[in-house]
């Protein structure tokens, strides 16, 4: 159903007759968009064959739309360009205005510029890429410096520059609302770690050392690292998407014209909120992972909770815990700064929001892992 237009369409046709130096084209049927592809191919392969005059008779066309009209006009101008004189050109009366419009709006389609593969082009690409990197580096440095200065300025005039409500809202958003997912995942990771540790250590009769491996692994490394990665995916991406969408809607520009400082209103509350919330979140994540581990130890190895706790107290010191915790605000700072920075880089189109959100997550996860490796090096030098 719905194809009644097609049903009354008759097949389009055209005939070529040659008489000496005269070329006669007669056309008929439906010259519409649905038949354009086939007509296009046939008309393109039309040979002038030494003709000097041509007659185009379209009077038997019973349906013509602007695409069919274009094919007629193109054929006509094509013949003229080949030095053929058009002695007659006719279409049914009702289509004359349409054809006149098409003819007067005739435009050469833009040529597609192909980039040649040469040494100069290669050098140009290298140069452009280098220049882009330089501009980006300057941009990032400028941004970090600007936010740092703004951060200190809030101490000078907290009444004006510190946004308490926004900061608290961000703590709720990135911290409290993340409790279920972080807790669930860390509990499961505790179970997995304990199971793997128990499986290996059982062979040496050292099942009890599972607790040591679990405690040190979670508190020093895994608790903070996995929480940071979850938060980069959950909140870093949200920062970029929120700020980016505001930029697309010109909300950022509106703020600027009203004298609101975008850094104070949007960026500092997010970065501060994350820096405050992440250490608590990491602490909670550590506890959940240890609970998961304790549950697994009980069912798999028969280590009861009092034994687990006693062994844990022997295995870890306050340093073990602090080594993990000290990373949390640093990771939070990096995730928050990257998320907001990419948000501010969004251009005014929908694709750009998606692209930069992806980039923000990839960059912050990358930086978190690089920094974690850096911390390990520093701690090993310090002998902690």
């Amino acid at each position, binding site marked *: *159903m*719905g*194809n009644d*237009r097609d049903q009354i369409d008759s097949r389009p046709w055209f005939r070529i007759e040659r008489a000496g130096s005269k070329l006669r084209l007669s056309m008929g049927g439906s010259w*519409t*968009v*649905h038949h*354009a*592809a086939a007509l*296009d*191919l046939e008309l393109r392969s039309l040979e002038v064959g030494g003709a000097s005059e041509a007659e185009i008779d379209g009077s038997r066309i019973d349906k013509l*739309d*602007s*695409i069919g009209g*274009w094919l007629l006009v*193109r054929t006509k101008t094509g013949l003229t360009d080949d030095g053929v004189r058009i002695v007659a050109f006719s279409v049914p009366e009702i289509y004359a*205005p*349409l054809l*006149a*419009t*098409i003819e007067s*709006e*005739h*435009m*050469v*389609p*833009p040529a597609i510029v192909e980039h040649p593969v040469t040494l100069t082009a290669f050098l140009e690409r290298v140069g452009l890429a280098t220049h882009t990197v330089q501009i980006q580096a300057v941009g990032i440095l400028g941004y970090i410096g600007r936010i740092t200065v703004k951060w200190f300025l809030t101490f000078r005039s907290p009444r004006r520059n510190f946004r308490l409500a926004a900061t608290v809202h961000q703590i709720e958003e990135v911290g409290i609302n993340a409790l279920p997912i972080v807790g669930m995942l860390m509990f499961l990771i505790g179970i997995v770690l304990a199971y793997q540790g128990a499986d290996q250590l059982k062979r040496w009769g050292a099942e009890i050392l599972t607790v040591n491996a679990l405690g040190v692994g979670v508190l020093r490394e895994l608790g903070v690292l996995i929480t940071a990665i979850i938060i980069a995916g959950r909140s870093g991406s949200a920062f970029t998407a929120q700020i980016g969408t505001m930029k697309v809607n010109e909300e950022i520009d509106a703020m600027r014209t009203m004298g609101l400082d975008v850094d104070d209103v949007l960026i500092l509350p997010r970065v501060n909120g994350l820096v405050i919330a992440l250490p608590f979140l990491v602490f909670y994540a550590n506890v959940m992972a240890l609970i998961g581990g304790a549950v697994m130890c009980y069912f798999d190895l028969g280590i009861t909770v009092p034994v687990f706790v006693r062994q844990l107290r022997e295995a870890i010191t306050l340093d073990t815990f602090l080594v993990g915790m000290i990373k949390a605000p640093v990771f939070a700072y990096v995730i928050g700064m990257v998320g907001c920075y990419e948000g501010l880089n969004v*251009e*005014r*189109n*929908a*694709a750009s929001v998606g692209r930069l959100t992806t980039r923000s997550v990839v960059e912050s996860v990358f930086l978190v892992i690089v920094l974690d490796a850096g911390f390990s090096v520093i701690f090993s030098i310090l002998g902690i």
Partner: protein
Amino acid sequence: MDGDGKEIVIRLRGVVTRIGDRLIHDHLDLDVHRGEIMAVVGGSGSGKSVLLRSIVGLMRPNGGSIEVLGRDVLGLDEEGMRALQMRWGVLFQDGALFSSQSVAENVQVPLREYTSMSQELMNEIAAMKLSMVGLGEDAATKHPSELSGGMRKRASLARALVLDPEIVFLDEPTSGLDPIGAANFDQLVRDLQKSLNLTVFMVTHDLDTLRATADRIAVLVNGRLKVGTIESLRNDRDPWIQEYFSGPRGRAALA
């Protein structure tokens, strides 16, 4: 066909739309004839755009029937809807061009979707359509974000017209354009309507557009439609219609 022998291309009967518990459309009836320019006016939030969106199938009214080109929009299956969609074009308020594609690619989207033309022919057709709406060849390779608001509207109109639709729907075609740009756009719509024999259904605020283009006007007040020409509506008793046509702006535009 109705009594005057004119073919009806859009027929609304008893259309009811509620948003929340607010009655937006209270049993609307409307006939749009082939080849005319019908303009729907009304205050902000009166449900003009909702009406347009209901007709093109983006929203479902709570009751009533909507027929476009003899087909019941509310009862069509997917394939029937697709066949109908090829026969109309829609111009959205901000153009709604796909931002990841160049203007020429935007215009070619329906061609690529519905036909099997060569890229060369599609390029030629895009160039022709763009020049019909008054855009030069330099615009074809640009991305929508590089165009001004008026150029975006023109490019979007070119996209709406590429399959030679029988009906075009225009949502606030001249909003956001300067008066000269708006007047040019009105002229463009009028010219295209004549040369392509289009039926135009537009939603607008713009009194100048009404005077310059509309054959008939439907005023949406308090959920009801009043249909007439500018002259007949100016004599209507309704206070909103009085204010609209006889307020300072109305008098200036219609003088």
